[in-house]
């Protein structure tokens, strides 16, 4: 498939260092390559990892740079509610936000220097300009067998929007998660996918 024929799709994944944003983006990236699509991605490494805010850019069908321009992302996948707001500049007007409602409280809040906004206020505010799909992905992951699979719940949640067949994404999950966690992660994927399909 030539690059011109490929549909361009820009996805932003936001969250907190340690939530597994990189694995989520790898599952999608590897699947895109298997599906014969070109892909570019950008991630956060180094100092910013330590509990800091992280953002990954994923560009399917892209031949140039890995960074999504402002107002360029079709969808934002936010692994944490406050981190959805932090990177709104990258989402196109009227774009879709899939957001995990489980907050990760930063040290600035635990130490009393700042306040964590009400999650309901965040969601109401986002809904004014964007299409919002909000649910607690940590709970779905727990039901699937492990809270650690929250990132895969979120991949499942966005899967219906991606120009990649579901089966290819499942193969990618099997190849990238630890062997003994495959079953849990496949359940996590289905739980996330179902949640968004129902909404």
């Amino acid at each position, binding site marked *: 498939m030539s690059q011109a024929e490929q549909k361009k799709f820009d996805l932003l994944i936001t969250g907190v260092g340690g939530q597994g944003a990189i694995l989520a983006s790898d599952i999608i990236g590897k699947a*895109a390559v298997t599906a014969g699509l070109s892909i570019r991605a950008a991630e956060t490494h180094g100092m910013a990892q330590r*509990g800091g805010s992280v953002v990954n850019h994923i560009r399917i069908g892209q031949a140039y740079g890995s960074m999504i*321009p402002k107002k360029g992302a079709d969808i934002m996948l936010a692994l944490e509610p406050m981190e959805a707001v*932090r990177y*709104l500049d990258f989402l196109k*007007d009227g774009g879709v936000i899939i957001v995990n409602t489980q907050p990760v409280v930063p040290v600035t809040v*635990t130490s009393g220097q700042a306040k964590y*906004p009400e999650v309901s206020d*965040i969601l109401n505010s986002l809904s004014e300009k964007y299409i919002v799909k909000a649910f607690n992905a940590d709970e779905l992951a727990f039901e699937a067998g492990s809270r650690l699979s929250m990132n895969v719940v979120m991949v499942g949640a966005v899967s219906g929007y991606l120009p990649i067949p579901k089966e290819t994404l499942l193969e990618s999950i099997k190849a990238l998660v630890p062997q003994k966690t495959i079953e849990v992660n496949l359940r996590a994927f289905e739980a996330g996918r179902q949640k968004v399909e129902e909404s």
Partner: protein
Amino acid sequence: MTMREYMLGNVAIARGLLEGGVQVIAGYPGTPSSEIIDTLACREDRDYHIEWSVNEKVAMEVAVGAAWAGVRSAVTMKHVGLNVAADPLMTLAYAGTKGGLIAIVADDPSCHSSQNEQDTRRYAQFALLPCFDPSTPQEAKDMLPYAFEFSEKFEVPVIFRPTTRISHGKSDIELGEIPAKKAVPHFEKLLDRWVMLPKNARHRHTHLLSIQQPIEDTLAESPWNSLELKPEAKLGVIGAGIAAMYAKEALVELGIEASFLKIGTYPVPRRLILELLKTVDAVLVFEELEPVVEEQVKLIAQEAGIEVSVLGKANGFVSREGELDVGAFLEALKKTFDLEIELEPSGTAIELAPRPPALCAGCSHRATFYSMRKVFGKDAIYPSDIGCYTLGIQSGTVDTTLCMGSSISIASGLYHAGEKRPICCSIGDSTFFHTGMNSLLNAIVNKANITVTILDNRITAMTGHQPNPGVGFTVTGEPTVQVSLAELCKAMGAGFVKVVDPYKLEETQEAFKAAKEFEGTSVVIARQPCVISGKRAGIRRVPYIVDPEKCEGCKQCVKFGCPATEFDEENKCAVITALCSGCGVCAQICKFEAIQEMKK
């Protein structure tokens, strides 16, 4: 059929080195360059030597030795690492090489994980060395076999300069062949080449200058530069390295007709620049960091007597700070055409809590800093160094951070300046081995009355847990000598050396008190494995919980700043979350014995 794989830029660079037939790779970890060696060290079928060297200068010299034995070698580092390795580099440019030598130096526009934004291309200019500037991870991989051949053809080392978005970008990568046959090492005693006596150096300088033009001409013909002339276009765009991709994307999206020159090598391709300048009225130069290409374009236009306006960093069309993106190119276009395009703001009225990086729950550095501050007090001066522990700025125990190893020497300078306040500096184990050793030796010999704290977490943590000389294994996991920090400090003449477990507050504070009273350079080694690598190695501790009956709500534990400790405002009680790694420090801080080990 060609093989395509989804890869990190640094993994693609590692692959490029293999496809180029590399035989020796050395480096020092530094974001964004570290994963190149991490990747090559993990391969099962290694037929090359690979090492983490103690610092970049040493790594560069290891690569030089290999290249002088006629094999292909590479050295990896981050941009500031080249400052450390600049000494061998500058003279190596004169001596040249036999086997190909590539210095991979990763720049970090916007200081994502760095202390400055220096541009490695300036070093290439300074040293009169060719430099490669990839625009995509694929091109980065493809450039490397070419760069090896180029280095051998001209017998000069070459610099390869990825930026953060290349090194930490990901892409589908088309793989090439890895050659099976490699050079047989043989060091030839060419004294006029390898012994830089003044008479040899003079000759070699002449030689280096004489090959500049052939180098430029050859690179201009390489596939890494390309010129697309649009017959009607009055605007030319020159994009260098990754910035070329941002510019191209913006031009294609907006459908703007501009002639386009993509530059991937230095010295810049003068012939192509002239060809472009002759056809346009204005040229917009877009490049990360310093206006290296822009200055050359101005020079070339002036020499050729071409009237053309050069738009770029000097006249404010493009920023000289931070990193570029598609948006930065759109801004430059707006200024060029005097356009008014304002995007509707996306923000909400929600006020966000900042989320700065923080030391992990249970990180021993936090405990060391706590004890340090207790003993030395808030008036003491705390020079520090480069590593995760720079985040100790949140504990009030990081007053300076300049460059690797500088904590001890700056502490010495403060003392010798006549500063009467107590001085206690901190430096990580890997940073100490890197360049802190020389500073300690210097402090001891010159009688600096300071306390040096070595934060010995048994690994190079911040860059991704690479081994250092204190851990007893090499990059490939082979057992090797384990250097004792305490014995090393004693051998350098330190009269006070004490090893403590920072999780034991009383013991640590006693050591700090004795160190503070010691007349001369005292050393406290706070030893406790990094919580991340410790967990991977199987260290499991019982987590702690707060007994709400005993908690008085004094917040002393919360103020300690561990991410696992929160405060329940409703019940006026501290809470320990699932992040707890069981270090037990908060339990020692609590005056009411309200924090206890969790019972099964």
